[in-house]
């Protein structure tokens, strides 16, 4: 049983550099079990998903990326605001010739590159459409995982439709914006935050949770990425933390292993141990702060060889084991 049963739209945010795309991909894989289809979408035009899955650049066509480790399928989509707007014009508003006039006047250009904010309306609108799309046999996708903007912009991004609904007080845009607002604020949407066990990402996570809540958005889990086990045993860590590693002990150990116990090497090993202990100490403090945020926490191991498909499967299984999917 997943912790997020009933969630149709998973949005991933986090401080830059915390691995949002990786975690979004791992979550999509974890959700894709037993014939389920999951859509993994990006909105920033970075082609991070294509790079991660080592495939040709994604476009506005939903394309199968891979099978999940347990029998489902992950599809990929790069949401492009321009295409989304054209789709709106034709599909939703049946604008016909008026749409063409708007296009000639540069409305598409205007909306997607010049007018700030409208872009976000289009991007969230497309994610909403995909999450609610139905086929004869039910929903087209079991879930949509959105690789979203970083923490600094996530609340504004998801809340843009509230703004729009307030501005356009009547008409189809108003209604559409209202529906999106209802959807992203309902328990059918969860905003997960990726972090590292470091001061600034954790602080930003805490700030983002407060912002999202204040905007009435549903905060999901905190996903701690790139977690590594200590390389020293507890006793060694304690000694290192207090600077009490005896050079003589280390030199003797090196000699016993047949290595040259040079003073320079001993000093390096001691300094590395002290840095490592400081890092571990910081991480345990950050871990305590994360635990205190009041959200489910999942930990993802650091992939020593970089992120590839095998690594993503490993992360997906870690997420499943912890109940994230």
């Amino acid at each position, binding site marked *: 049983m997943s912790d997020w049963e009933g969630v149709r739209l998973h949005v991933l945010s986090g401080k830059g550099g915390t691995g949002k795309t990786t975690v979004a991909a791992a979550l999509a894989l974890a959700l894709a079990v037993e014939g389920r289809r999951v859509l993994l979408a990006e909105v920033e035009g*970075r082609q*991070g998903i294509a790079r991660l899955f080592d495939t040709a650049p994604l476009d506005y066509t939903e394309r199968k990326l891979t099978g999940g480790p347990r029998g489902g399928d992950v599809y990929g989509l790069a949401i492009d605001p321009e295409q989304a707007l054209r789709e709106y014009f034709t599909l939703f508003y049946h604008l016909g010739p008026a749409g063409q006039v708007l296009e000639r006047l540069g409305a598409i250009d*205007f909306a997607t590159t010049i007018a700030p904010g409208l872009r976000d309306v289009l991007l969230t609108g497309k994610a909403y459409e995909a999450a609610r799309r139905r086929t004869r046999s039910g929903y087209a996708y079991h879930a949509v995982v959105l690789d979203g903007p970083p923490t600094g912009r996530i609340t504004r991004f998801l809340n843009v439709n509230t703004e729009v609904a307030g501005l*356009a007080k009547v008409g189809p845009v108003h209604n559409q914006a209202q529906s999106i607002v209802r959807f992203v604020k309902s328990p059918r949407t969860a905003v997960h935050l990726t972090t590292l066990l470091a001061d600034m990402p954790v602080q930003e996570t805490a700030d983002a949770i407060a912002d999202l809540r204040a905007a009435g958005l549903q905060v999901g889990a905190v996903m701690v990425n790139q977690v590594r086990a200590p390389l020293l045993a507890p006793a060694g860590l304690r*000694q290192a933390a207090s600077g009490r590693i005896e050079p003589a002990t*280390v030199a003797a150990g090196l000699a016993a292993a047949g*290595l040259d116990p040079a003073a*320079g090497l001993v000093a390096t090993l001691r300094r*590395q141990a002290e840095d490592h202990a400081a890092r571990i100490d910081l991480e345990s403090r950050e871990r305590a702060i994360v635990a205190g945020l009041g959200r489910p926490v999942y930990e993802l191991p650091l992939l020593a060889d970089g992120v590839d498909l095998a690594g993503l499967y490993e992360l997906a299984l870690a997420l499943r084991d912890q109940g994230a999917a």
Partner: protein
Amino acid sequence: MTAGSPTTGPALPLHLDLDALLDDPQTRIVVCCGAGGVGKTTTAAALAVRAAERGRHTVVLTIDPAKRLAQSLGLQHLDNTPRAVAGVDTAAGGSLDAMMLDMKRTFDEIVLAHAEPRRAHQILTNPFYVSLSSSFAGTQEYMAMEKLGQLHATGQWDLIVVDTPPSRSALDFLDAPSRLGSFLDSRLIRTFLVPAKAGGRIYRKIVTTGFGVATGAMTRLLGGRLLQDVQTFVAALDTMFGGFRERAEQTYRLLQAPGTAFLVVAMPEADALREAAYFVDRLAAEKMPLAGLVLNQMHTVDTGAGSAGVSTGGDSGGAVAGVGTPGVRAGGVGTGGVGTGGTRGSGTLSAERALAAAEALDAVPEQELTAGLLRLYADRVAAAARDRRLADRFISTHPAVAVAQAPAQPVDVGDLPGLREFAAALSAGQR
């Protein structure tokens, strides 16, 4: 360019001499840009502290600093005005002010400065304006550049260090001035204004027909009320057109001026370096003066000879050679091929040998500590090798870009002494 003179042979990466850059009175603006999470804000703050303590009258404009960093600069209050940073050493005759961007207030100030009071009031209370100035993504980029222009115009500081917003794309702020221009010039906006301004009758007829259809469509989409708000807003804005566009163009020219230095900030990760490469190319295309690349968070292996942060690059170079990195640039950014002499003792211990030794020691319970230390060492050597490889790949494809690097810190920088130390490591390195 002021920085980037080679310190050694031509095959090695150019050394980015940050002190020379900061000390040069011709350097008036330093822009730190790069992907999110690479330490842009910290780098900007650290360089500002260093410049101030080396005698420059400096102001640092931060966009969205982490709480602790903001506190270390005395930025608890967001009031859109530079304030003196306490604790900075002013013995060299310099000073440091810091401010955090308030985008709405900056926008309001422009309106107030450029429109007569009645118009200004009309704009400031327009619902479309209120959304535009406070909630919509993209405004931050406009306003960051606007604020830079303002700070520069006061002539109060001889060095401005700017951080850039956490944009969708790191390039958004470069596009901000021209985008503002196209916003004001866009046919859609002009169409909104035409009924009030068009001259000839035929022209008016053609345009208003198009306008009627378009307005009809827009009204259906948005509702008449919003359309009215937008029209009122655009009409009010029209009076400020000249001022706006002129300023946008001025800021753009300012960024191209020889007194401006762009620093692309990155860390040794594929995504960050890819973005850095993209940025380098884009700056060249825009004729923006690039000073060089700041490479943060480089894992290094220090053998303890010489002071930390200076010799590290060289030592990791030696260690890396042991794990079989292709030898072409084994010295990499850090060493410039010099400085490894005399520290060979541990530089020759490879990750493999360290791991083998650790395994041998596992059989002996009392050697648990040394076994652990050797594993940690092997891990550090591998991390340094990986970072070096990534950095070297960037350097070999961008041989003309000068580089400064800072070693990975065990804990985050979050106070003034930390910033000072970080800047010292950045400036000192790689000789």
